[in-house]
């Protein structure tokens, strides 16, 4: 496991920070961000995927009422891929919703999805070697968060009560006197929140339940031959 990793530094991997507004679609935004990143890493091709398709084609048809990351991956598998954000743009909480997956060309697809073991070392290794993953955390500490590394305890951020999905894009150590290991996470509350839309959580203490649901799609190389290995920028 490298000391630091930040997929934001690799061009074409991490898309711009989104704003879910009044739609509870963090689960869809995290899943779309995961697939976009893996597609960028494996196919060397930058894509922005349709979150609206994930919402409209959600098995319950009401994606803005909340959901889970695995629902998003199942939708992508059922629809044999996902359209681009440009073709099927985000509208959020619109009144009339209908799955329009068949009307649009698929620009990315997945082979399957997995849940990683609940071990932060394993998560770091997977993140560094394969790419960003989704995690679901207790968001209690995020309402008043501005900057820095959140080091919560189980009493002020219960790791069992996870209610917000985000994309894990890297890890590192703070340069303060007592260096603090942290995770770098991409949120979906716009770029004016937190650290330009991102936040950092303490690494190594299952802060806010970060290890409860570490999920990722699996995207293979376009052809089965030796590919140039893409590594996470330090």
């Amino acid at each position, binding site marked *: 496991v490298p000391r630091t990793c930040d997929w934001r530094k690799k061009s074409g991997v991490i898309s711009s920070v989104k704003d*879910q507004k*009044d739609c*509870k679609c*963090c*689960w869809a935004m995290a899943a779309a961000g995961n697939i976009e990143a893996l597609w960028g890493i494996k196919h060397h091709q930058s894509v922005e995927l349709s979150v609206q398709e994930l919402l409209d084609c959600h098995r319950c048809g009401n994606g803005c009422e*909340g*959901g*889970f990351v*695995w629902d998003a*991956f*199942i939708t992508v*598998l059922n629809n044999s891929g996902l359209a681009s954000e440009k073709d099927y743009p985000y509208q959020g909480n619109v009144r009339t919703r209908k799955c329009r997956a068949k009307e649009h060309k698929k620009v990315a697809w997945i*082979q*399957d*999805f*997995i*849940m990683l073991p609940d071990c932060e070392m394993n998560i770091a290794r997977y993140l560094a070697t394969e790419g960003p993953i989704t995690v*679901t955390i207790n*968001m*209690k*500490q995020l*309402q*008043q*968060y*501005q*900057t*820095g*590394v*959140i*080091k*919560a*305890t189980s009493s*002020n951020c219960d790791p069992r*009560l*996870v*209610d*917000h*999905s985000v994309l894990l894009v890297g890890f590192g150590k*703070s340069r*303060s006197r007592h260096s*603090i290991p*942290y995770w770098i996470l991409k949120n979906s*509350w*716009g770029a*004016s*929140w937190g650290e330009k839309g991102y936040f*950092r959580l*303490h690494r190594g203490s299952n802060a806010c339940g970060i290890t409860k*649901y570490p*999920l990722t799609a699996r995207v*293979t190389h376009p*052809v*089965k031959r030796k590919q140039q290995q893409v590594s996470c920028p330090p």
Partner: protein
Amino acid sequence: GSLRSQDPGPQPLELKEVFALFQTQYNRSYLNPAEYAHRLNIFAHNLARAQQQQEEDLGTAKFGVTPFSDLTEEEFSQLYGHPVAAGRAPNMDRKVGSDEWSES
């Protein structure tokens, strides 16, 4: 910063000034004076909460005014959280789809 350095805490006028800055920064307006007073009250409560979080945090995080400072904890949770999943995700120990990945 100025709020935290005050003792015994922000006076009503200062709080209103900070709230006015918040409204400008995040483009917030309220329907009537009652709603304004309600949101101001929540804002003050959240500032106190942020200060408490700041004291409790063991890392380097800074807590304070954010786009969500005029929402109660419950409203914030209802607007942005999703239902808490009980137990483990369904059948997540099994792969979805075929073990043999297709070339096409």
